[in-house]
């Protein structure tokens, strides 16, 4: 799938300084479905706020799962196809490079994710983007817990950015557009993300998560109220 391709489309200086780079995976795009903030599909905000791309495997996954992407699924497919980031080498090269490393950090084995996972290829592509100087910071957006753990481990030595969940993205939108987004609107969005991510089970676990993020949202709300 990944045959070494040249890095293309360098961004303008303005784009580089104003918009972080975001690698989003299929799980987050599914969990953010059917949420509208300021009359816009919340996933569209990914492309408004960030320079958002997907790896080739994620792009293929989205194409195969349009019917599970809710309303606006076709638009998301188009966005993903238009913003697919190829790896600069073959995927085997990346697998080999990452697998051979043994450091003081407890770095997770790539096999735990599956060698063909979109989350893994997203991470490799994110490393590429930084190495080639195309962006200054990566937001690795995924709701897959294994992928989050894998990325968090690797981000200890490989300081290219941060890991976000879909909950974090809603929180970001709220602080970014607090003047346009009501706290209740953001809380409703958070509830839906939480329900979508839960797949209808483990209420206790998702309750703790929802409660934690609603608490964070209240803090942001109070903070910004105090600032202005």
């Amino acid at each position, binding site marked *: 799938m990944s045959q070494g391709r040249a890095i293309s489309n360098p961004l303008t200086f303005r784009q580089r300084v104003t918009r972080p780079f975001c690698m989003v995976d299929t799980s987050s795009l599914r969990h953010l479905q059917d949420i509208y903030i300021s009359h816009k599909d919340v996933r569209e905000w990914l492309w408004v706020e960030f320079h958002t791309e997907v790896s080739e495997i994620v792009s293929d996954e989205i194409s195969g799962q349009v019917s599970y992407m809710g309303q606006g699924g076709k638009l998301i497919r188009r966005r993903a196809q238009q913003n697919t980031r190829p790896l600069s080498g073959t995927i085997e090269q990346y697998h080999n490079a990452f697998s051979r490393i043994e450091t003081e950090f407890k770095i997770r084995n790539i096999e735990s994710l599956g060698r063909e996972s979109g989350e893994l290829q997203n991470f490799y592509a994110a490393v590429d983007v930084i190495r080639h100087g195309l962006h200054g910071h990566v937001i690795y957006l995924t709701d897959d817990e294994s992928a989050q753990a894998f990325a968090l481990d690797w981000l200890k030595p490989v300081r290219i950015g941060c890991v976000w969940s879909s909950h974090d993205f809603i929180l970001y939108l709220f602080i970014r557009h607090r003047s346009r987004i009501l706290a209740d609107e953001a809380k409703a*969005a958070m*509830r*839906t993300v939480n*329900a*979508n991510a839960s797949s*209808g089970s483990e*209420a*206790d676990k998702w*309750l703790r998560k*929802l409660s934690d993020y609603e608490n964070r949202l209240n803090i942001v709300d109070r903070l910004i109220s105090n600032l202005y």
Partner: protein
Amino acid sequence: MLSSVYGTDWNLLFLPEDPFTVVPPMEPSQAKWAGLKKLKGEFDGTFREALTSSRNQLVLNWGPYGAGKTHASVYFKIEQHMPGPIKERVAQIYTLSTRTPKEPGQAAFLLYSDLLEQLQMERIRGRIRTIRSEVGHDGALEILQNLTGSEALGRAIWLLGDEEQEQLQQLLNQYFLSGLSPSQLPKLGIGRSIRSSNDRFRILATIFQCFIGLSQDPKPASYNRVFLWLDEAEDLTLFRSREYTPFARGLRDLFDSLPRFFTMFVNFTLAEPRMEPIEVVLGKALIDRVTKYIYFEEPNCEEGVEYVRELLDQNRTDKDEFSSLGLPDTYPFTEDAVATLLEDLSPRTPRSIHSRCHDLVMRAFAEGLFREKGKGIINTEYVNSVYRNRLDSENA
């Protein structure tokens, strides 16, 4: 599990069957309340108020998994388990219990149809007929239309009280439980179908009100009380906001529509003893209406021993023979053995107590400790040997 030549005969322990089941009984008359006196006191106080005053109650029961919330909803389903005898009390009680629907997209419909089926259409017809005879046909129609806030829905409920016309009543069953096609509606003379979650909660509130009664007399004896148990409310976490909002609003409106002689128990499982997550899920509007919080606290070791003793005592068979043998109340355990068994148990909930007691008794059966009636006992040494062996094998 040990394979053994020895059988499992609970009669040898003066017990009809295993009392340490980990799922609540289905049948309220078979449910027993053991120990947990403080918790029982909280419920007794709530029921005393419910039976003797008009105040509506929203009771939030919360606690960890296996703490006994669902058991309480089964146990208190029948009047014999409520405190009594009480003078100046409501005439009758109606207890309904349901769980938070597992299909959020149809939550209001599932809750509504479950409750109507528990009430039974025939019984609902009987109540409407009584009201029509008490206040007159026209008066009843007006009242029902006011209660539902809808001419069509009020009329549909009123029609349930029409004297037996089988075809009409079949159509009405269909209207309320599954819906009628637009071409069928004129046959009933009803302007519209049941459309929304809001409609369903209004119908429920009106029917509940009919069961409570429409008397103007201030005495509780002139009314009935409706108890509604909603179990597994933590599952509202799994509702998307578009599913959650109408459902939570419906519950709130249901409570607000029944200002007298209505009690709603909401069971909420939460491992941690903080309230904040509950408010996040139920919403501030509903939390503000809570009239009583009942926390299902884990019993301490002493309370745990008392719980086991009472549970065994309530299940004991051949009591005279049992007394003559001088066995402890905690038989098939010595009291010290129960204390040792529960000492390090975490969480020490009724479910985990049942589970640990069951495991140990089954092991003792398998090892041939109980071969004759009333002979053999689980003592502290036995408990220690089992748990030391288990620890040794875990560490090996």
